[in-house]
């Protein structure tokens, strides 16, 4: 028993835990500032938002430590079951869920609300890791790719029914772990090419875009005029690209929710709207810009204090950091995240077990996707899709799910010498 404890403490990556705790503390301080009301400066209260967040942080730590005490094999073995449970929860939320702000994303449990989509992330990550580690599939062949896509697409589809586009898009980050495990790079290029075309499609008229694609295709065909096979391939791609334009247009106009359309149009500069959907972003940019180099100081941000930025303790918490701590504060926070992510990737690479490595990449990419999109939307370079900033945004579900994600990985790492 004594020996096992020692091993446990020696093997856990304490640096990662310290960064985790630092981010939680930064989050708590800024949530306090975000909801601070100079008119009602009362004593500490557990019923206030910052009080609840403190409870979430403490329970999160308890959950994390509990995970560290579990057997590492547990996660690999029970991965399909965890995945199954989260899928059931995603189904359940569609039936018994509470509709908040247009999204049927919450299951009320007493005074607490559970957000299954947050937990679906690690369920999916576990199953993906389990699939790849167990079957060692060749990811440049069709069948394994389709299986992986299916594993990721199921939660995406269920979350899209809520409908919560932001959380759905998070699952796109799973393509990077798959890339690491052998998914051909051209598939990623094709995918992001399609995203690029989708965006260009909104900017440019169809005629211009089609002409451009045909010219590009013709140039490539001319280049490969000696190789008939490639010429045919390029011709096919050109035709598909043109067809895709129309599909994309249809998707944009008929599948996306109006507010999502507006947000995309705002972010692409196709629309300006200072009072509607664009208001959040403008106010958030003003708050961050007002911070200048060193910020206005704790509780001194007027944008923050007087409630100019909506949803400031949750999705727009970064604007509080920007205003009260300035560029220096932003640099520290982004630096901590990047340090954490690079460390997770390095740890993942030192794993003997494929399961641990794939899982490590999964959480790194999920975390990065959240960080980049969330901060990007507060400074107006990403559409506002309403996903939280890991460990910092207010909210029990997201904090716990990120904690679980991270601590499972730490547990796997602490056990890297053993066999799963």
């Amino acid at each position: 028993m004594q020996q096992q404890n020692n091993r446990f403490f020696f093997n856990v990556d304490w640096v990662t835990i310290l960064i985790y705790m630092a981010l939680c503390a930064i989050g708590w301080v800024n949530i306090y500032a975000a909801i601070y009301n100079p008119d009602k400066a009362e004593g500490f209260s557990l019923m206030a938002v910052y009080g609840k967040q403190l409870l979430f942080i403490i329970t999160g730590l308890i959950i994390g430590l509990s995970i560290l005490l579990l057997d590492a094999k547990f996660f690999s073995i029970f991965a399909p079951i965890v995945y199954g449970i989260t899928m059931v929860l995603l189904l359940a939320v569609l039936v018994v869920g509470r509709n908040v702000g247009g999204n049927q994303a919450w299951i009320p449990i007493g005074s607490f609300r559970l957000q299954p989509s947050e937990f679906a992330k690690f369920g999916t990550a576990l199953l993906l890791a389990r699939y790849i580690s167990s079957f060692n599939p060749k990811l440049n062949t069709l069948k394994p790719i389709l299986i992986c896509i299916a594993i990721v697409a199921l939660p995406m589809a269920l979350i899209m029914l809520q409908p919560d586009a932001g959380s759905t898009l998070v699952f796109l980050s799973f393509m990077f772990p798959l890339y690491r495990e052998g998914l051909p790079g051209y598939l990623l290029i094709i995918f992001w090419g399609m995203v690029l075309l989708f965006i260009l499609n909104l900017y440019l008229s169809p005629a211009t875009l089609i002409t451009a694609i045909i010219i590009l295709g013709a140039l490539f065909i001319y280049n490969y005029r000696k190789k008939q096979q490639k010429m045919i391939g390029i011709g096919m791609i050109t035709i598909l690209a043109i067809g895709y334009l129309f599909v994309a247009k249809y998707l944009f106009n008929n599948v996306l929710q109006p507010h999502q359309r507006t947000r995309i149009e705002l972010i692409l500069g196709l629309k300006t709207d200072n009072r509607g959907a664009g208001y959040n972003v403008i106010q958030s940019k003003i708050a961050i810009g007002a911070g200048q180099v060193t910020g206005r100081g704790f509780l001194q941000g007027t944008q923050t204090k007087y409630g100019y930025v909506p949803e400031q303790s949750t999705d727009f918490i970064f604007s509080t950091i920007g205003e009260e701590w300035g560029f220096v504060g932003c640099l520290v926070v982004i630096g901590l995240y990047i340090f954490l992510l690079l460390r997770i990737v390095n740890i993942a690479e030192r794993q003997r077990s494929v399961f641990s490595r794939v899982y490590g990449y999964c959480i790194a990419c999920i975390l990065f996707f959240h960080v980049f999109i969330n901060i990007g939307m507060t400074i107006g370079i990403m559409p506002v899709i309403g996903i939280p900033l890991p460990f910092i945004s207010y909210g029990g579900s997201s904090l716990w799910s990120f904690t679980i994600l991270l601590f499972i990985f730490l547990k796997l790492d602490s056990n890297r010498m053993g066999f799963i």
Partner: protein
Amino acid sequence: MDQLFNRKYIIQGLFIVLALTLLGKLFYIQIASDKYFLDANNNALRKIFVYPARGVILDRNNKVLAQNQPTYDLMVTPNQVKPFDTLSLCNIIGITMEDFRKKFHKAEVQSKYQASVFQKLLSVETYATLQERMYNYKGFYVQKRTIRYYPDSIGGQLLGYIREVNQREIEKHEGYYKPGDYIGKSGLEKQYEADLRGKKGVINMLYNAHNVPQGSYADGKFDSLAIAGDQLTTTIDIDLQKLGEQLLANKLGSIVAIEPATGEVLAFVSSPGYDPNKMVGRETGNNYMKIWSDPYKPFFIRPLKGRYSPGSAFKPLDALIALQDGVVDEFTTINCPGYYIAGNRRFRCDHANGDGNIAVRKSIARSCNVYFYNIFARMMLKKGGKNQHKAYEEWQEKVRKFGIGDTLGIDFPGESAYKLFRAEDYTKRYSKYWGYTTILSVAIGQGEISTTPLQMANIMAIIANRGYYVKPHLVKGVGNNKSIDSKYTEKHYVGVDPIHFEPVIDGMEDAVNTSWGTATESRLSNILMCGKTGTVQNNHGKNHSVFIGFAPRDNPKIAIAVIVENGGYGGAYAAPIASYLTEKYLTDSLKGRKINGSTIEMYKAANLLPVLKDKTPKPKAKIDTLNQADKLKKTLPTQNKVAQNDFNKVATEPKKHATAEQ
């Protein structure tokens, strides 16, 4: 390691590149650009101005000319308005539902989130009623401010008016004024704007996203209190001013009275005037348009914009220069045969049989043109016939010293400077072929010489002071310590020795106090008033009646110039008005004298306004008497072409007794 290991670096590289993108954008909005920082301040920080009371304007005896009274503006912040009983509000403030909708729409267009004026200038009674029910009207509140009130309704043009600033003024006074602020637009209100306005107080108020004030920024460290405007003690005598305005009622003209020793202006009357209270309150806009479109131009400030040939009123000045020059002395007599021959031209004197041999004293009392033609000729020829241009140049320099040909520099906006010809100006007009005969009419104050009533009064102050003047001014003290610009205490000497004034003053004394004078009827029983009448020809209608004078003869207390347009002879209207005013000022009472057989009430009631010929009448602001001197005719006022209304028939009554002159 498998070759896929390298993909680690691609993924890590992607993390770093995208994180740097975020930092780049953050660097731009936080450090490189000021825009967001300023926006944040605009969002949350607003300056609330506290308006100080405007300085009170007093007369020379600390009686109130202009003061403040409280008024109440109903303000509205559209986004805070909750549904309420609009009809009850409309009834209280006395507007229709239609008005209400219009005003509310206007407020919404201006700003939904900031308060704007909904209804201006509520009475105290309305305010009291409204205040009781204010809780019913969410989003509305009442703002107190002060407006001007003029207890005696006098001195409209003198005091000027205040109105909202326009864009040009906002730009000119970099930063002090905001749209909706008030500024002095004319008169003393404009001249002393910086003293009267006081200093706005500022509260740096923080607002939250719902536009609810959150208290003062930095606990009020950068706030300031409003400082009330300085009071203005004017030189005006309120009783004299009031009497002057009454006497000029229904007439075009002006009165300027100056205390000679100090240059303090005692009365500053411009007629027609307007009630200054008309320029205050809700009807300001309408009243302004009415006054503005009045064909007699009440906004025209005659005392210092009116252009008049001084006419005979110029003669004392002419005599003084001649005496100082030594071309004549006090006893030099000149024969007046009833005409004056210069070269091959014959200038007639108005007195048909001539005045005989007269010296300076009688020439002034009789206003003999021939005497003045003679002394002018002597002055021009004293250096010989070839040097006339040089002699004229010297002469006009001496005239200039009396404050003619330029502004006097009174502390009032818009003083006009009318040109006095220099030798070169005549050369420009006539090339070199001109001599004293060409310009002889200036000898009797006609021709290329124009003055304002203020300048005429100032000439009288110079004669009363025997040789100097202090720049006329309207304010003798600003604020509690009564500071005043030192330029209004300096004496300006005119270069004529005191000894030469006595014969001239003798003549002016005779003009009023002897049977052969031109203003005998206007004499005062126990005060020795000295004066000079003038009858100024006017192309557009009846002659203008002019009187300039001072009293008492020794240690004078008042110098005065009165011009009544279309009033006929100087003795008919101007001299009696000056006489009444002098009596009032020096004895503080009016004994009910009749002058020219008329009581003071009849003078007040007399209507001399010219009949308007058509829809676009030209007010008689500018009087053109150029080149009329040689054709002066003794025309009876009643034969004049213009004034034929009933009022004028009544008004001509006093003239039967007026002494003929000129």
